């Protein structure tokens, strides 16, 4: 199980650095966003079930710099980090199967 939360201070450590060893799936989310609430359990399950990636949740009201830095203009906003870089992203709610497939196609 590799489910974590990150903020502006530990984002580089938990996401950028870690992604040089294994892919990291980052979910930028907000309390006030309904699709974010719906995606949350799915993202958490993926984090608990997969050992080959890390899953990191970032609350954009707590972390303000990183969402800006990565140009988050819609939430939920899911980014896949490999080797320190975002290789792809999607916005909005999706099913677990779709997300797992999306990840597998990219790593």
């Amino acid at each position, binding site marked *: 199980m590799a489910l974590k939360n990150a903020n502006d201070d530990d984002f580089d450590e938990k996401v950028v650095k870690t992604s040089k060893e294994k892919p990291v799936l980052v979910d930028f989310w*907000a309390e*006030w*966003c*309904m*699709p*974010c609430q*719906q995606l949350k*359990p*799915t993202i958490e399950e993926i984090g608990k079930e997969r050992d080959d990636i890390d899953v990191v949740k970032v609350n*954009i009201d707590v972390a303000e710099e990183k969402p800006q830095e990565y*140009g*988050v*203009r*819609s*939430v*939920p*906003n899911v980014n896949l980090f490999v080797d320190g870089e975002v290789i792809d*992203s*999607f*916005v*909005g*709610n999706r*099913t*677990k*199967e779709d997300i797992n497939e999306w990840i597998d196609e990219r790593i």
Partner: protein
Amino acid sequence: MYDLVVVGAGPAGYTAALYAKRYDLDVVVVGEEFGGLCSEAYIVENWPGSKEIEGRELTERMKEQIEDIGVEVKQKKIKRIDRGDTFVLEAEDEKFEAHSVLLALGADKRRLNIEGEKELVGKGVSYCVTCDGPLYRNKRVAVIGGADSGLKAATLLAKYAEKVYVFEATDEMKAEKIMIERCKQNDKIELNTGTVPKRFVGDEYLEKIVFEDGKEVEVEGAFVEIGSVPNRSIERIGEEEVERDEDGFIKVEDDMSTNIEGVFSAGDVTTGSNKMRQVVTAAAEGAIAAFSVYKYVGDKKF
């Protein structure tokens, strides 16, 4: 084995489940998005009994109400429905067997289908103002569409944004008079009619909108609020096609039955209620459908 599987977890599906459960039917609700489109509504002011309520809260309450009486609501996508002696509905990791099916599939936000739109989704182009509005604090944004949902979006955006342009394609705003007045009184909101967007422009993020008449407006966000289209995630039951009208709405009779025996439909996806597509009409159709299912299941003596 269920008496009824409700496909769709919006106001129509929830209300159908509420009534079905009270008729003592075994019912389950399976939907992709809890609350459906209504859950994204900034504010609902025409649901009787609530002066104003967030769409999200309204649908959460509906969900709680049916869960309280023992209806399970599952977040899953039904991929296929087959029919033998009973209906078999397949989700990715679960199968549901039922005597009847209610298609309460709801609606999806309509796309403009113009250049740059697809590429800039999530990078300035948005279909959910309650999700993304707060990300545009002190920015300039546009709302495409001058009907109720567009003007509601504009009033919400005006709380955050520096400037909100509303662009309506026809010659007059289509929203309720009360909404138009509210926007006119808001200094941040500028209403434009006869403006048809041609393309969204931006390298990495949205930078401007170009209109058919050549006009250009620089904005960082564009919220597309031009209505909805019926969801088409389920087209057939086994090999049999669910009949729809030319605009894609599932054809229903007054009792919410479809062309397929045992398959009913309710809410924004149907031709019912003069296609008014309100929370109140979705709920009404759900109730009617539940009663029809009750009669159907009883008559068949399953």
